[in-house]
């Protein structure tokens, strides 16, 4: 069953003075995401990927078209909490999404808002912290944590709600490589072990290669929607859309262009190394 269904959505931010809306940021986007998927959304700045993310839990509602979350229309304001409980959202800057002065209090925040009884909150908070590997820091102050740790706390705050899906809007953009790796590991574990659907908005190609499916956005439209190996075989088109391709893909592409016989769908470093080794005999 599709957890998210975006049907022909067009969206333009209203102009400041309330006059004609600006040029639409999303132009007829349609996408379906099934339960348990790990989808990466790629696109350069201004491609509409963050705007699309904000449609997935009713922060924004479409100017035209519909977004359905498990069959609930996001335009229905009376179901707002139902939607947000199902689709959690993690933002770029971990500092600006942590509310409380103690880690576990922050993880409890959403549950307190939803009116969950105290004992149940306690249980779910401990579970969520355990799932992101932050149990040790339950009583710490958030500002003493590293970027990657803060972002994991933010993720714990979302999964404590037991959402079916989490949408992350460039969660690793402000992190160092180690923090990025921590967050990616956490997301993959949540997806695999708990069956949580993950929609990861990113501009890091190597993160996108770890997803099961890649959606590439360009100029408010979906350019590609396919598994990573297929998407990254379009080296020239991606470059034209202002995107990089993973280094492995780039290497194979250049080698192919130089006349070597290499498969088009190589993206992992191991595959690439093996293929090059075979070429070398």
């Amino acid at each position, binding site marked *: 069953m599709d957890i998210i269904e975006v049907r022909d959505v067009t969206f333009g931010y209203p102009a400041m003075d309330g006059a004609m809306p600006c040029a639409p940021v999303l132009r007829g986007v349609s996408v379906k995401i099934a339960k348990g998927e790990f989808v990466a959304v790629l696109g350069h700045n201004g491609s509409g990927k963050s705007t699309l993310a904000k449609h997935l*839990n009713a*922060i924004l509602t479409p100017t035209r078209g519909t977004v359905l979350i498990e069959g609930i229309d996001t335009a229905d304001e009376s179901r707002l*909490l139902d939607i*947000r*409980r199902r689709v*959690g*959202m993690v*933002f770029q*800057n971990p*500092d*600006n*999404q*942590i*509310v*409380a*002065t*103690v880690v*576990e*209090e922050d993880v*409890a*925040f*959403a*549950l*307190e*808002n*939803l*009116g*969950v*009884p*105290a004992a149940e*909150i*306690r249980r779910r*908070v401990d579970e969520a912290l355990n799932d992101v590997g932050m149990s040790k820091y339950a009583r710490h*102050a*958030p*500002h003493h944590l590293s970027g990657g740790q803060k972002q994991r706390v*933010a993720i714990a*705050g*979302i999964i404590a*709600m037991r959402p079916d899906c989490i949408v992350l809007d460039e969660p690793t953009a402000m992190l160092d490589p180690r923090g990025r790796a921590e967050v990616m590991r956490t997301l993959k574990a949540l997806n695999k072990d708990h069956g949580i659907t993950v929609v990861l908005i990113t501009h890091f190609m190597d993160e996108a290669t770890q997803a099961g499916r890649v959606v590439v956005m360009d100029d408010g439209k979906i350019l590609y929607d396919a598994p990573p190996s297929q998407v990254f075989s379009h080296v020239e088109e991606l470059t034209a859309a202002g995107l990089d391709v993973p280094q492995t893909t780039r290497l194979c592409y250049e080698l192919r262009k130089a006349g070597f016989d290499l498969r088009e769908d190589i993206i992992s470093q191991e595959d690439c190394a093996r293929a090059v080794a075979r070429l070398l005999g």
Partner: protein
Amino acid sequence: MFRDISIGQYFPGESSVHRMDPRMKLILTFSYVVMLFIAFSGPSLLVGALFVIIAYRVAGIPVRLILRGIKPIIPIVIITGILNMFFVEGKAIFSFWVFSVSAEGVRMAVLMALRILCLIAGTALMTYTTSPIALTDGIELLFAPLGRLGAPVHEIAMMMTITLRFIPTLIEETDKIMSAQKARGGDLESGNFLQRVRALIPILIPLFVSAFRRAEELALAMECRCYHGGEGRTRMRILKFSSADVYSALFMAGCVAAVVALNRLGAALWAL
């Protein structure tokens, strides 16, 4: 330079004072302040001083912390003392030109100094032994009845929490902006007062802009976590009064009774 600021300094510990219900601590601190102001004889104020010393011992907070807390207000204590000495009328024991010092004035000066010192030490003990979040919880619950009358109790408590959460973040940010300005030749430390105030403008403007941006993002993140005001909200931690709370309340009641009794006694003795 901003690292020294410590608002609501908290010293974690496991003493029975630390483990007391924050609501009870708020109530007791308030009663203590009232008690200090109804105590107007030496012996009754000594009860107040004794109370705060015992409380510090039980809490395991070192006495030098009292001194540290008191240091900034010593000038106030001295000024009040001097004013009391000169302006309280009574039998003059010493005088020159238009000034005269009365015995009553000296007595009032000493009592006032003692009172202020107890006041600071007593209220500081509450912040020393109560984490900010417990304090906010306590305030929210204690004032909840006012919420039914329409006072924005939950909102104020939420604002306090967010303020406490963002103080370190904004201090860090200020440090960063200052370094950035210094790196580009900004001079923040020399010049007269006016020049230094003017040098703060290029720090405050980016700080405010970023604070507003943070506020907007935080509001969005809170909405995404289903925040919709205080209505129907539950709490993870439920505050419970324990036996320590009951004993300390009884102890406080005993002290208040002693103060009232000693007031009477002191007044009778003074009259003799």
